[in-house]
């Protein structure tokens, strides 16, 4: 049995089911991160003093550049599929996957430096919220990498069978990936700069 409305749009919503689904998922993600941002505000405004300059701004800025670049490569992976250029699509998707990996490697070194100095999540309120926010974001990066790996591997077969459905799946992956980038755009200034 075929799943309906994967390529053609539903007459009532004007959307494919997948697109509406990913946006509803992203809406729930906004609430998840929103609750944590709200927690950050409560902790920060309630703290008698807040550490400043404890995080490596250069590494944080480099990771911001990496994620923004990965957002460009991700949208290009989708655009090249629309232009039926399979080779370039693969190249852009691999680039996005590699950039995501580099982001996590940087984060590993950043975490390791904190742990070496004894700055564990239990060290202070700041480290607790820092590890919670960046850890959850890191898990999202890892989740995105798993999806990309699937579309670079077994999931790529769909391109031969149903190219439009495959392009839609890459678009949904892109929407998720841009959301992860968007969250980092706010995390970077509030944690590293303010």
């Amino acid at each position, binding site marked *: 049995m075929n799943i309906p409305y994967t390529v053609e749009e539903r007459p009532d*919503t*004007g*959307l494919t089911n997948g*697109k*509406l689904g990913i*946006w*509803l998922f992203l*809406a729930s993600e*906004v*609430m998840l991160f*929103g*609750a944590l*941002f*709200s927690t950050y*505000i*409560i902790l920060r*405004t*309630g703290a008698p003093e807040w550490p400043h300059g404890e995080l490596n*701004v250069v590494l944080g*800025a480099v990771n*911001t*550049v990496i994620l*923004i*670049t990965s*957002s*460009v490569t*991700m*949208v*290009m992976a989708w*655009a090249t599929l*629309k*232009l039926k250029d399979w080779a370039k699509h693969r190249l852009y998707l691999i680039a996005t996957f590699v950039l995501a990996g580099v982001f996590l490697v940087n984060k590993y070194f950043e975490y390791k430096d904190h742990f070496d100095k004894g700055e564990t999540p239990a060290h202070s309120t700041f480290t607790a919220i820092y590890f919670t926010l960046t850890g959850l974001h890191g898990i999202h990066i890892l989740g995105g990498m798993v999806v990309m790996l699937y579309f670079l591997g077994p999931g790529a077969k769909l391109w031969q069978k149903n190219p439009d459905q495959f392009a839609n799946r890459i*678009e949904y992956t*892109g*929407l998720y990936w*841009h*959301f992860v*980038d*968007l969250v980092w*755009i*706010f995390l*970077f*200034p*509030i944690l590293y*700069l*303010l």
Partner: protein
Amino acid sequence: MHSDSAAVKKSIRTYMMVGLALLVFTGITVGANQFHFGVPVAVTVALIIATMKGSMVASIFMHLSHEKKWIYGALILTVLGFLILMTVPIFTTLDTIGQHVPAIGGAAAEHSGH
């Protein structure tokens, strides 16, 4: 979603320009941090730039500038929920948890010596 080749080729230029603008804004955010403004100014500047960057990602990369009304409807509800979450910190300054509030009749009992 525009799918014809000409429209996609035109969009590619926009994606590149937006990507470049996002990198420039990141540079401005880091650069502005070197000036050591007061906390209220620093927070305002950083959040304005972050909001501008976030809007560019959402409208161009996530194609929100030309989406269907169902998506906008879902997002309006999300924004409302998000704003409610952001007002929660205000209530923490208005509550009386941890403050001593005498029980009804307690003060009178204390004065009568019982």
